[in-house]
């Protein structure tokens, strides 16, 4: 990156954001269809969150232990590297896109280094754009969740995959959804102790969806694999259970997680009195309530959105993965959280479609497989909802916005006294979502609290939470450099 300057522009037929399962697949498909591709990714090496691995210069992970679909990754990676060698794929790692613009010629991306360096990132210009930015763990606040030692479930997995070590000794993993299983299994296989996995939903919630599950038999195999790991390590898996409070010791700077309180809940997520119990000697708590797709770039370009079955705001696409904005394609979690296999299929379809010059409707590959995976994902979302009663687990003093330290009491007061119902109004009254993360972590919860306990947040409210003037923090210098337009 020595020659990188803020003034440089990389040009291509197709620009891709993200090098996870969807982005890698899209790059490979577009390049193999003859397009010149530029791929921008925030990480230092390809793989995204799903295939995050140790730094390749230090450890080669050939066997893919602890990874799923590693053979698919190796295949896509080999084709990706081949595309780079042919000069068809320009790979720009370590860069975050902080702004995307569209004009008649296509799309322009402004980038900034993920890790501070002496120089800024180049601009990227392309006729077509594929956004596959992925997602991150959705969070619900609970008393004590801002103590050091509380992490996103996916953050624990990322720590393990990226460093080959664990962030603690004794773990409680809680929330909802099948993702809690690989997180807990990974911890146990790496030598950590999983004190309990607390799943708010019930196994019976799957019964109405068995048909959809049967359409994706490999998921059943994966489930059996985790069941074996849970049995081998004696991991208690407690359904209809939630963490009601995380406890810490030490004051101020030295405080950290030491214990967890839990309770059983009914189907609505209401705590059943008398079922409370404690887990002592816990040093890491991992929370995951499904995932939130990274919607700021699709929203900033005006892509049409909808509410998915899991309550997430996602982009609307056609059979070729094209959004409502001509030339803008979406692949992976931004079209609906559905896992890596679906993301790869969507990436392949988007890459092939974006590479084609005339839009003569060509049937996208893998449509049937995609439909099967989407049905499964929808069943998963319906079986693992965010419990309606979660707001009752909070006290008025519970921090909701970790950045600006806005409490649940302040948000409900803004709702009751000031009629602040949507995430944007709550933000302007309370500063919830105005800090460093720009509401990525608290946006869903703040939108729920604004709506009140009776109903989930609307697409409009989530959209107002996910609209960010800048998609990544940038320096004043990078903003100033925009003024004398270089186009």
């Amino acid at each position, binding site marked *: 990156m020595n020659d990188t300057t803020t003034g440089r522009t990389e040009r291509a037929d197709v620009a891709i954001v993200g090098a996870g399962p969807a982005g890698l697949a899209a790059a490979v498909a577009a390049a193999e269809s003859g397009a010149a591709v530029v791929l921008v990714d925030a990480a230092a090496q390809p793989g995204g969150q799903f295939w995050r691995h140790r*730094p390749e210069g*230090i450890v080669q992970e050939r066997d893919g232990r602890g990874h799923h679909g590693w053979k698919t990754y190796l295949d896509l990676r080999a084709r990706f590297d081949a595309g780079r060698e042919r000069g068809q794929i320009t790979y720009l790692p370590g860069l975050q896109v902080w702004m995307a613009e569209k004009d008649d010629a296509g799309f322009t991306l402004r980038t900034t280094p993920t890790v501070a360096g002496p120089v800024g990132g180049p601009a990227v210009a392309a006729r077509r754009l594929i956004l596959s930015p992925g997602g991150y763990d959705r969070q619900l606040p609970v008393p004590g969740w801002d103590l050091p030692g509380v992490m996103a479930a*996916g953050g624990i997995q990322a720590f393990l995959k990226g460093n080959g070590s664990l962030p603690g000794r004794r773990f409680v993993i809680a929330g909802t959804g099948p993702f809690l299983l690989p997180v807990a299994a990974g911890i146990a296989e790496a030598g950590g102790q999983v004190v309990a996995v607390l799943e708010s939903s019930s196994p019976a919630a799957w019964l109405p969806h068995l048909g959809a599950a049967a359409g994706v038999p490999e998921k059943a195999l994966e489930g059996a694999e985790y069941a074996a790991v849970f049995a081998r390590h004696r991991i208690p898996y407690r359904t209809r259970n939630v963490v009601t409070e995380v406890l810490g010791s030490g004051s101020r*700077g030295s405080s950290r997680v030491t214990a967890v309180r839990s309770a059983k809940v009914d189907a609505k997520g209401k705590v059943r009195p008398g079922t409370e119990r404690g887990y002592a000697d816990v040093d890491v708590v991992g929370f995951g309530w499904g995932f939130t797709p990274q919607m700021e770039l699709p929203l900033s370009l005006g892509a049409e959105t909808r509410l998915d079955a899991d309550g997430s705001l996602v982009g609307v696409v056609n059979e070729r993965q094209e959004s409502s904005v001509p030339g803008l394609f979406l692949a992976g979690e931004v079209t609906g959280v559905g896992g890596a296999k679906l993301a790869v299929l969507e990436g392949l379809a988007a890459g092939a479609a974006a590479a084609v010059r005339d839009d003569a409707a060509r049937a996208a590959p893998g449509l049937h497989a995609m439909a099967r995976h989407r049905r499964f994902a929808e069943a998963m979302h319906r079986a693992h909802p965010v419990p309606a009663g979660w707001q009752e687990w909070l006290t008025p003093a519970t921090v909701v916005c*970790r950045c600006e330290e806005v409490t649940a009491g302040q948000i409900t007061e803004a709702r009751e006294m000031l009629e602040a119902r949507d995430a944007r109004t709550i933000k302007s009254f309370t500063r919830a979502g105005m800090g460093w993360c720009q509401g990525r972590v608290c946006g869903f919860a703040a939108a729920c609290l604004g709506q009140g306990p009776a109903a989930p947040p609307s697409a409009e409210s989530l959209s107002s939470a996910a609209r960010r003037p800048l998609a990544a923090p940038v320096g004043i210098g990078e903003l100033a450099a925009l003024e004398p337009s270089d186009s």
Partner: protein
Amino acid sequence: MSTKAQRGAGGPAAAEQPGSPQETVTISFDGRPLTAAPGQSIGSALVAQGIVAWRSTRKGARPRGLFCGIGICFDCLLTVDGATNQRACLVEVCEGMQIEGSCTPDDGSRA
């Protein structure tokens, strides 16, 4: 996995051999030398030493360390070789790196 990268015996002598893979790197945290494995994130190097918080919040002076682990939440910010607001979960350690946190452990003297 890589016992070679994780063994903590190396020391500065091993780190100075040009061209050979380093067994450990030495970094400093708030002026204190720490040993880390090459390729580790700063966050992982600190947590491995029992340091779980390195920033205090502005209002409540609440301690913060790793949370999302993937660069989304900005809870784990610290200063790396003079560059402020770097994410500990994303930056890899390297030999001689100087890291500063803004978290003051409570010794009873803070208001």
